[in-house]
């Protein structure tokens, strides 16, 4: 993952909520939803708050100084997963929201590889437009 490639969340079709460090993400178009583990939720929050990819690397290394060597590949893999699920998109006109003037405090838990779990069980509920006929006036008509 190139450090100069920045990302933004694909709003409004992608929405999320974090409770007690656990995050759920929902793609309103596909009906797929995702849960993030704790470190994944931290990175998601970093993207939401307008941090550059370089800053996200730095922040994650500051949170987990003992595992700093693992961070680049783990974060890159996580960003690639978010990208492949279209939860984030490249941001060409990126404005960094804030500078990292003070280091982030180390996390009070061991580093875990940021992870994304995907759920596809809402496909049946998502009321996609079914194949239908139209009446003589052109109004849709369920078969």
């Amino acid at each position, binding site marked *: 993952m190139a450090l100069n490639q920045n990302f933004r969340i694909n709003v409004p079709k992608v929405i999320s*909520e974090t409770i007690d460090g656990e995050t759920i993400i929902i793609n309103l178009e596909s009906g797929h*939803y995702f849960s993030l583990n704790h470190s994944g939720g931290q990175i998601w929050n970093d993207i939401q708050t307008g941090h550059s990819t370089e800053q996200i690397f730095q922040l994650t290394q500051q949170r987990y100084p003992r595992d700093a060597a693992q961070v680049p590949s783990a974060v890159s893999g996580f960003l690639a997963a978010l990208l492949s699920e279209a939860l984030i998109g490249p941001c060409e006109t990126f404005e960094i929201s804030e500078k990292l003037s003070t280091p982030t405090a180390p996390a009070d838990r061991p580093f875990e590889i940021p992870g994304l779990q995907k759920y596809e069980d809402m496909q049946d509920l998502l009321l996609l437009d079914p194949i239908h006929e139209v009446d003589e006036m052109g109004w849709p008509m369920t078969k």
Partner: protein
Amino acid sequence: MNSPSDYYDTLQAVFTSAAVRAGRIVRTYEVGGFSIQLSFAGPALVDRICPGVEHLRICDSGETADFKICLWDSLSTSTSMPPPPWQDRHLRAKGEIPGLSDERIFASFQMGSDALSLMDQENSTALFWVRDAERIPWYETGSPLRYLLHLFYQRKDWQYVHGAAVGYPEAGVLLTGKGGMGKSTTALTCLFSNLGYLGDDYVLLGPGDPPTVHSLYNSAKFTADSENFFPELMPRIANPRKKPGEKSVFFLYPGFKEKLVRSSPLKAILIPRIGPNAEPRLESVSPIEGLKALAPSTLAQLPKTSSTTLRRLGDVVRKVPTYVLHLSPKPRETPPLLESLLRNLI
């Protein structure tokens, strides 16, 4: 195409013409302090829309209703409908019609019922049209006007949710999660216990701490597999000649009206899970598990949802505890467990 507001006015005139031709029938209902007036052109839609909400009926409030919906069908009123002002490709998931919606008007076409709904969000009025009332499926009769009720209450910062609810006027629980996990069956077993019934598929959550859960529909739907659990209800089902695969629909009003609870302070969220458990039991889980059960299935079924909808649901799971309800193969063993839970939470 004319503006969405122009189209709304055009269809309002079509309704007026249909009402003159077939006669106007007015019914008024109340949910959570808001009055909802349904004006029908002729009787054809009354039996398709009203049974599910009849427990909420109040005296007609005249022109002062908080939300007014005009409903008609073309077939019984012999009223022609102008062609749709959109091309077929404009229909999106959940029937949203972007070209026919703007800041004021929200339009959707609900496949299955083949119903067009137009909501005037500024004036809290709406239009509901179908070609043929007889084509409305029974599952829609059980929980009618979902899109419009969701749109109205969303603007009040209330939330229409996919879930069942049971309890007492002093305390209730919300059963949520995807279909087929035992929500409806658990809710129905409460008819044979001390617990009251607020709904088996969709209910309304009002603001507050704790939030309040409100009954919307007095219907219950169950599959052929669940019919064996409720043999005494089978003579009462509304669709005895149902199509293959269609659920049985049963209205609790008026036959079981003493079991219906209008609203309850919400004390817990339960996620039913079917399993080989010797007896039902509760397992406390984190709030995010409650949100994972509640939010995706709610959002997948409603139009015009957004990050605000998810935030509202997040606020609910932060305020009340969430449990997994491990069900046993004997559904009627569940209500005593829920009664015990509610006694501890009141």
